[in-house]
């Protein structure tokens, strides 16, 4: 299954030692395939930040297996994790996290710098990516001179520069006004349309509802894994909702259907007209009784 980008099996995370062990994640199972756009939602304390840290190779799980792009990263050492972060993951943060003393181009170059690619080769790639997020005019501006929306676009370009297998976004619109937020979401939709795999943590129910697949967490467990309502975002030129995502079973790593590029494009065309009244998980019901799978089987 070469199209599986990310696979969690019985992933646990504990903090503390001895008597004071605090179990944050209770054995998560999750499969995300290439081209999926997955939202992770949940109340604070539900473990989504911890999950994001693990997915981002910033931390090591206490138990279980985490395969990223076919490689088990749970047991990697610090340098190898850094390498995974560098090559397989693109981070987009709520607070942009651009380095203030570097200009736009240098910020975007950073992952390539740590990958050891020579300066001459970095430039064209970065300029191309910045052009694709519409930031060509600010190549040599510093982050403090940019608006929030511009900062986030630069951050997205930076996240993409090493062609990561997985784009991890942590509340990417949390610090933006609605207009800029919408723009950034359009950008994510476009990336999704281009076939990128995106995992996004969000608190915003509207955004969450608009995503093709939603994973809901509660108390360190995945309580629901459903396709979102395929509502087009206003102003989004190219919307895509893969029909295949609707068939995903919560907590199962095998039931997902990967939409092929063509199917997705077709689906996008019908999406405006199609509302799925009978579709599973049409609305996001947090903590709905009787629906908790009680952990992965």
């Amino acid at each position, binding site marked *: 299954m070469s199209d599986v980008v990310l696979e969690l099996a019985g992933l646990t995370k504990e903090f503390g030692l001895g008597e004071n062990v605090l179990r944050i994640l209770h054995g998560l199972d999750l499969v995300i395939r290439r081209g999926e756009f997955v939202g992770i939602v949940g109340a604070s304390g539900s473990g989504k930040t911890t999950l994001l*840290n693990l997915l*981002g190779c*910033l*931390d090591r799980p206490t138990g279980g297996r985490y395969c990223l792009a076919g490689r088990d990263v749970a047991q990697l050492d*610090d*340098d190898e994790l*850094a*390498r995974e*972060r*560098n*090559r397989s993951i693109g*981070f987009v*943060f709520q607070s942009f*996290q*651009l*380095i*203030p*003393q570097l200009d736009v181009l240098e910020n975007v170059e*950073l*992952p390539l*710098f*740590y*990958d*050891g690619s*020579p*300066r001459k080769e970095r430039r064209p790639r970065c300029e191309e990516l910045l052009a694709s997020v519409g930031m060509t005019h600010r190549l040599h501006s510093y982050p403090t001179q940019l608006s929030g929306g511009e900062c986030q676009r630069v951050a997205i370009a*930076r996240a993409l520069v*090493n062609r990561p297998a997985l784009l991890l976004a942590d509340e990417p619109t949390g610090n933006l006004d609605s207009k800029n937020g919408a723009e950034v979401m359009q950008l994510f939709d476009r990336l999704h349309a281009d076939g990128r795999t995106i995992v996004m943590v969000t608190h915003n129910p509207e955004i969450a509802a608009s995503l093709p697949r939603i994973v809901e967490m509660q108390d360190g467990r995945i309580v629901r894994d459903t396709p979102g309502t395929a509502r087009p975002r206003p102003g989004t030129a190219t919307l895509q909702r893969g029909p295949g995502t609707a068939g995903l079973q919560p907590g199962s790593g095998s039931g997902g259907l990967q939409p092929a590029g063509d199917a997705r494009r077709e689906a996008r065309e019908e999406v405006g007209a199609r509302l799925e009244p009978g579709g599973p998980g049409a609305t996001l019901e947090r903590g709905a009784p009787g629906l908790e799978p009680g952990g992965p089987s």
Partner: protein
Amino acid sequence: MSLERSAEILGQGLRGLRRNKLRSFLTMLGMIFGVGSVITMLSVGAGARAEILARIGELGVTNLILNSIKPPEETKPADQEEWIARYGLTFDDAEYIRAVVPTVSDLLRVNRVTERAWYGSRRIESSVMGVEPRHLSMFGLTVGRGRTFNTIDDRTRSKVCLVRPGFVRQLETVVDPLGQFISIGGYPFEIIGILEDAQFRSHTAKALNLDGAAQEIYVPYSTSMSTLGTLTTIQRAGSFEASKVELDQIVVSVRTPEEVFDTARMLSAALAHKHEKKDYEIVVPLELLQQSEATQRTFNLVMILIASISLLVGGIGIANIMLATITERTREIGVRRALGARRRDISVQFLTETTSIAVVGGLIGCLAGLAGIQGIARYTAWKAIVEPHYVLVALGISCAVGILFGIYPARRAAQMNPITALRHE
């Protein structure tokens, strides 16, 4: 790591300095003062050393100088009104040394006369030295105007003298001093030459038992013996005291520096045999040279210590600021780690920054030190010698300080947990 990448990392480090110019400069101050003082002290030390060596070298490393000194017990007995103290080196000593010390290649006698010199009716402060003609060339006394005296002057006991320019100034005369006569002990002496005002060196003066006034008058030895004699009288509050010293100084030459210390021992033994009292001293310029070299070594050691302390303080300053910077830039460290920087990359980044601060500070310190040396050379009598390798040494040291004091902050930065670093406010 490729050269290009190293250059890029270095460039980033240097850019880091410009980010907060005032802070970088203040941090550098410790290094600037440290390195500046290292350069200055090295140069001034080298200058002082060279000057001392030159001064002692002037006495001749193959020379030994015997001076007559008044023994402390030789004071006037209270019951006598007229009394002549007899002490010091004798003519006999000179002959004896020539006879028994085989290494002596040459021996020069010096007679100091305490008679005053008169020009017309005015008394001129001076000290009169009766020296053999070879003495002048041996001690580098060259004549600027007129002529020097030679063996014929010495043989014929001609009453001629050589004076210093300082003496000429005291004459306060408008006529050419050459050919003028001055009176010493009642005898007229013709000024035949004016010595060049060689830089009067206190060390030389001390070793030669001269006073520092640069007022010596040189007359041929034989002339001084036949006219002025060896008796010195000092009149004091009604009474008078006289001393008779046959030879005030004997300069002994040997052929090679290796013979100097043996000769000194032999001289000491020979003179001890002839003298009951210790009314002479043996000055060995070579020994002085070695002593001053030892002194110089101590001096150097102290300088190194002081310089090390200032560099230590500078290094601590750098480490301190870097620790603060790292706290300030925690989020940056977190972001860099998230984007794929290994611990080593973070270490290298901060080490480069501390080293940049130290080396740039060191460079400024070098320039400040060189400027300070110029100032010292211009406004004081000190001589300073700057050797190119001092600059290299200073820069090497600052580089080492940068790395040494960067290690701890860099480690701290590298050990940060990326998750907490990213959330740092």
